[in-house]
């Protein structure tokens, strides 16, 4: 008798993922899976869902464990080797503070909602893929927190990220983005997060962060980033399979999916405004400009590669994409200029870009930097030379949809702020762009509920009426916010590098809580 043959990947996947499913006999399918019809998406055959990774639970566990082992080896050597001193400059960590406050809580949100999909999608294939992603997202949240906790011992701004995610003005941008997605139905969530966030835009978020870490001496972040990103490839696949599956199941799904692509491209793109300034301004040693990243990861790969593929199903490139393309010359400058004047109320610090940094910006943005933004920095420098520091004395007007301060300019006119508004049931609502206005007008009932930080402060819901009241409610500690120059973090950094005595380096002079 022949020895039992090892099953092939295909057979193992069929046996362990699909064959363990059963047909329901004592309960109706629409009672067991009550949320997959109200969005109008028609699915005729759930077995048509493809998982190219052909992942089974044993293989999943084996490789995830290996990824974690590799990461924790790096974290150990970081802690043992005084890794916190290896950065290019402590101001680099502003990018990581933004990441921890803004992105890590989203990983946890994603974990929760993919767990919901793992229960409530009708087919065993997508349920298992969602289960793996749910576990991945939890792993990402945990490893990010664990990795960055090594810096929290020595640096500012990382002690209350979870609390701040729910309260601080600029963090309402990522928070509201995810709130919007998890309160949609399962199919819209798959397009919002699985497709738009994980496939269309993820490279613009993760790869610059991780390459930035690699370039700025932050080994552990680079390692957790690549570790997470290896899961991300699977998530990209899930997003792409989800969209193809919906489009192939019924032609009536096409216009619904198109509207979701239109909405979630613009929502995601506005969220990435925070990343654009990180690349161009926050990183002490630059990796690539936002413009270059946008051209490479979005225009070339997505508009040039993906959308011709989706055209087969009748899908067009996202609505308002031409505005995003036009903004690539100005976006990061406008965003950092805004953060510069509002960093008194932020969990990170800002400063006037150095001469070298401005030279680099002028080279990267020959059309716009010297003409439009250098004069502003010169004026801000003059204020500093006079012993001052420019902070905006007030609160900004916010966009009702993306919740970013209304800093964006009119298409084709980078010197005039874009103002849009719509009246709904007798009340006026303001928007930063045609994209956000269009999103509101599609579903006004959803966005009238927006928890806009500025409005909440004025309603008295944020600790009190004064700026110090609000900052205390944000749990900002001295040194977390404001100007980089002269900050406690900068001073401590200089002291650490001035001394060679191990005893003097040992304590953590600026530890958070």
């Amino acid at each position: 008798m022949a020895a039992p043959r090892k099953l092939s990947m295909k057979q193992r996947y069929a046996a362990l993922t699909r064959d363990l499913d059963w047909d329901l006999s004592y309960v109706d399918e629409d009672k067991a899976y009550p949320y997959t019809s109200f969005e109008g998406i028609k699915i005729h055959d759930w077995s048509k869902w493809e998982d190219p990774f052909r992942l089974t639970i044993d293989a999943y566990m084996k490789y995830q464990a290996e990824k974690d082992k590799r990461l924790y080896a790096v974290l150990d050597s970081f802690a043992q080797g005084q890794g916190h001193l290896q950065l290019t400059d402590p101001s680099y960590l502003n990018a990581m503070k933004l990441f921890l406050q803004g992105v890590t809580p989203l990983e946890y949100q994603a974990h929760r909602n993919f767990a919901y999909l793992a229960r409530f999608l009708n087919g065993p294939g997508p349920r298992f893929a969602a289960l793996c992603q749910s576990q991945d997202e939890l792993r990402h949240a945990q490893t990010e927190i664990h990795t960055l906790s090594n810096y929290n011992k020595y640096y500012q701004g990382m002690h209350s990220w979870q609390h701040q995610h729910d309260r601080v003005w600029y963090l309402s941008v990522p928070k509201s983005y995810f709130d919007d997605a998890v309160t949609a139905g399962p199919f819209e969530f798959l397009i919002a997060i699985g497709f738009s966030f994980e496939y269309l835009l993820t490279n613009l978020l993760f790869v610059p962060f991780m390459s930035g870490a690699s370039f700025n001496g932050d080994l552990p972040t680079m390692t957790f980033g690549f570790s997470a990103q290896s899961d991300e490839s699977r998530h990209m696949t899930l997003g792409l399979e989800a969209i193809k599956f919906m489009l192939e199941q019924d032609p009536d799904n096409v216009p619904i999916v198109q509207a979701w692509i239109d909405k979630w491209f613009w929502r995601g793109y506005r969220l990435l405004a925070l990343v654009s300034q990180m690349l161009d301004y926050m990183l002490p040693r630059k990796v690539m400009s936002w413009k270059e990243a946008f051209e490479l990861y979005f225009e070339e790969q997505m508009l040039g590669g993906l959308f011709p593929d989706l055209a087969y199903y009748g899908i067009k490139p996202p609505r308002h994409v031409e505005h995003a393309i036009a903004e690539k010359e100005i976006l990061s400058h406008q965003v950092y200029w805004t953060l510069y004047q509002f960093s008194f109320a932020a969990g990170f610090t800002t400063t006037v870009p150095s001469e070298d940094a401005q030279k680099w910006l002028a080279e990267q943005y020959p059309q716009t930097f010297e003409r439009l933004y250098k004069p502003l920095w010169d004026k801000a420098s003059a204020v500093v030379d006079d012993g001052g520091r420019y902070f905006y004395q007030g609160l900004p007007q916010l966009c009702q949809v993306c919740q970013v301060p209304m800093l964006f300019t009119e298409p084709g006119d980078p010197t005039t702020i874009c103002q849009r508004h719509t009246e709904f049931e007798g009340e006026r609502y303001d928007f930063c762009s045609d994209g956000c206005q269009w999103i509101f007008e599609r579903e006004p009932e959803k966005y009238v509920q927006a928890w806009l930080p500025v409005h909440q402060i004025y309603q008295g819901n944020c600790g009190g009426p004064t700026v110090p009241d609000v900052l205390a409610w944000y749990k900002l500690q001295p040194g977390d916010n404001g100007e980089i120059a002269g900050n406690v973090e900068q001073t401590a950094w200089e002291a650490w590098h001035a001394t060679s005595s191990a005893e003097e380096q040992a304590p953590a002079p600026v530890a958070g809580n």
Partner: protein
Amino acid sequence: MTQSTGPTPTRVRQVGVDIQETEENRAVVEAVEADNEDCTVRHMPGLVRITSPTRIVVNRESVEQRLGREWETHEFQLAIVSYFGHIAEWDDDQILIQWDH
């Protein structure tokens, strides 16, 4: 609306994969280079980016030859950072990335 085709309208439609720069992955990158004549390899901080105007194939046997040990295609999950294109095939012997349509 304006339909964009990216900065250069005549651009070839690429597929690509980003691989973490590690000792083991060097064998994977070499295998991909050997088996995909038209591919381009670019080194970026921490990662290697492989692009091709047609498709990218990763062959288990080619990787094993260079690694000098058994290598299952599942291990590619430890190497991959990102990709663009569609994973058209992933079985015991081969991984294939290309656009569908």
